[in-house]
């Protein structure tokens, strides 16, 4: 899984800590999601996409295979 979180964070001039605080999770959780090492729940994915003003489909890219 790849994500566009880092790119969109940069667009809104947001740090991992800022995003984590807005969603109410720990910073490490954002770091692991960004690196594709943790697949978030539907609710968390929805919350992240809402804060980054995008859709879940645009934010998370699942590679085939």
């Amino acid at each position, binding site marked *: 899984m790849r994500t566009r979180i880092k790119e969109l964070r940069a667009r809104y001039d947001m740090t991992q800590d800022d995003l*984590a*605080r807005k969603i*109410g*999770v*720990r*910073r*490490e*959780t954002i770091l*692991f999601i960004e690196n594709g*090492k*943790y*697949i*978030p*729940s539907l609710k*968390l994915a929805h919350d992240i996409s809402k804060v980054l003003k995008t859709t879940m489909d645009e934010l998370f890219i699942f590679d085939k295979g």
Partner: protein
Amino acid sequence: MNEKARFWRFVGILVTVLVVGGSFAIVSVSGSAGNLWTLVPALILVIMAMIALVVARKKMKELKSGIPSEDERSSAIRMRAGYLAFFISLYFVLGMSFFHAMLEDNQVSSLPTSEWLMVYVAAMGSIFLALNAYLTRKGVPT
């Protein structure tokens, strides 16, 4: 449960464990003077208190800065660590039980079973903490 209540629940459990464990260690040491094995529970307790102090300080710092002490990833890690620690502990206790029985048969160990149980519980806790720390760094398989 909010963060503050969760922190004070942690402190409450910790104080209870340390008081009960401390009383047990005092009774155990005073009841059998000269037997160094009875110092094991006291030693475990000191180690537990030191670890707890570090964890409490970290939690207090996080509480003050508004970082949630738990989220869905940390819950997933805790559950995975608990699951793995349960099975590893089963094998550990089984292995140590044979070792304990062997020591008793050869009259090498004079540590009572209750003290051995404390060692087992401390080992289980340590396995859980080690797995928790490892999975926090490496991540849980999804």
